């Protein structure tokens, strides 16, 4: 346990090193936040109460998306490129040698990364958004706490998916294709481009049931106070359920992959 805490702390520190890159990323998040905020304003001007949100809730959703983009790795950019590269070069053999579990090792590192991005890339866009627009920020500290729990579960679900994606490199060798497809799907089905409750009919129902909704839609709804009491427990259970299922799938795939591991390079 102590080991994984150290790995997580290492993940945090490692990403905290890139200060200029963090500032540059914040700038980009802010630019996109403004563009989306204006398009959503036009949309909600035409149809107030669209998807059950009022305008200020919709704008809050936009800035939450920018704040969580890196934390929940909705466009990739977590550990997966590195793991793919280690599988491709054969360095993964060293990881398998370590007296630590492969999946937990990378999960710990990714949680540390997410924690840094939550602080470094999350707070500032939210503050800028709240300064420029009228946002619906929860008053109750309990809602904030619930939001933190939901984001954490979102990070674990996101990790579990990306771990599966990275392991595909054992078979494909070059992971560029799947990683890209994976983040595209994540971008769309997390609700990053448009809230999932605006998706019509069956597409909407499917999108809301898929694991990616844990990355943004569920945490955002928790933040906006959509869930209360039993419904909140239900939302957590939904996220935790996907986390368990996907982590288990990752374990299974890991077992299969390591049995057929071909160490590349020399």
């Amino acid at each position, binding site marked *: 346990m102590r080991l994984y805490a150290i790995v997580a702390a290492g993940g945090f520190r490692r990403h905290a090193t*890139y*200060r*200029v*890159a963090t*500032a*540059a*990323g914040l*700038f*980009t998040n802010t*630019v*996109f936040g*403004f*563009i989306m905020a*204006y*398009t959503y*304003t*036009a*949309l909600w001007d*035409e*149809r107030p109460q*669209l998807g059950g949100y009022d305008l200020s809730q919709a704008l809050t959703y936009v800035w939450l998306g920018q704040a969580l983009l890196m934390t929940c790795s909705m466009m990739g950019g977590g550990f997966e490129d590195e793991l793919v590269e280690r599988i491709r070069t054969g360095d993964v053999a060293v990881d398998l040698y370590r007296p630590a579990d492969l999946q937990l090792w990378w999960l710990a590192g990714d949680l540390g990364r997410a924690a840094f991005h939550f602080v470094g890339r999350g707070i500032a866009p939210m503050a800028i958004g709240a300064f420029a627009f009228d946002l619906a920020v929860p008053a109750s500290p309990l809602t904030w706490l619930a939001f933190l729990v939901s984001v954490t579960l979102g990070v674990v679900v996101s990790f579990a998916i990306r771990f599966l994606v990275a392991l595909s490199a054992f078979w*494909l*060798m*070059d*992971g*560029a*294709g*799947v990683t*890209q*497809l994976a983040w*595209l799907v994540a*971008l*769309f089905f997390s609700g990053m*481009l*448009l809230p999932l409750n*605006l*998706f*019509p009919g069956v597409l909407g129902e499917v999108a809301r049931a898929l694991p990616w909704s844990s990355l943004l839609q569920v945490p955002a709804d928790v933040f906006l106070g959509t869930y209360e009491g039993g419904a909140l427990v239900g939302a957590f259970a939904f996220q935790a359920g996907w986390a368990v299922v996907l982590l288990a799938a990752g374990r299974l795939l890991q077992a299969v992959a390591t049995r057929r591991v071909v160490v590349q390079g020399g």
Partner: protein
Amino acid sequence: MAEAVRAYGLIVAMWVRSTMAYRASFAMTAFGNFVATGFDFVTILLMFSHVDALGGWSLPEIAFLYGTTSTAFGLADLVLGSMDRLGRRVRDGTLDTLLVRPVPVLAQVAADRFALRRLGRVTQGLLVLGYALWTLDVDWTPGRVAAVPMMLLCGGLIFGSLFVAGAAFQFFALDAAEVQNAFTYGGNTLLQYPPSLFAKDLVRGVTFVVPLAFVNWVPSLYVLDRENPLGLPGWLALLPPVVAAVCLGLAGLAWRTGLRAYRSTGN
């Protein structure tokens, strides 16, 4: 110049051959590129499942904006999309290798890791543009017809200048590749929506400071016979070639300044 283009062509050909070594990955990334931009447009379609107009603009009109900017951006991204790796090269010192070769550095950096998969974005942009041209109710005068290819070409050049200027900026701010994304990818997203949606100051900024408005907003107002939201005169629609030329000149200057200021990390 001819030598630079020839070198660019040779390096690009090499990367294309190398890409084809992993065919499955190439097929997936090209398709991914196609879908990536596709999702943008699906988002717009989903919006239009709830409304008939956005900021007073119809779906075919927005598809026209989307198609023109995506194609122009896609062309620039195809040719110069690798420029954002410059910061990494400066950081790890591999830029020095490019400096000692008897080939212009710009051609080498631009062709480095040339990604043919980016054709996916161009294809998708052209498809949406085709849909827009098919469904738009416009009186197609010769001037309006000529404006469309002009937008793609000049738009591509304006975006291309941003890629080069962004790379030049990385000579000074090594880790700041993302700032460039705000202008390139961010600009592309901005131009997919009508100018009437945005605050006047933002529209002024992208008209007079970073002249993205000349990629498609300004000429589209002419093609679609709409008033300029800033009340600017209609003859501005003739300006994209001039704006593109000025942008290219400034980007070239920025690149030279950056390259002169470059100091190796020394490893």
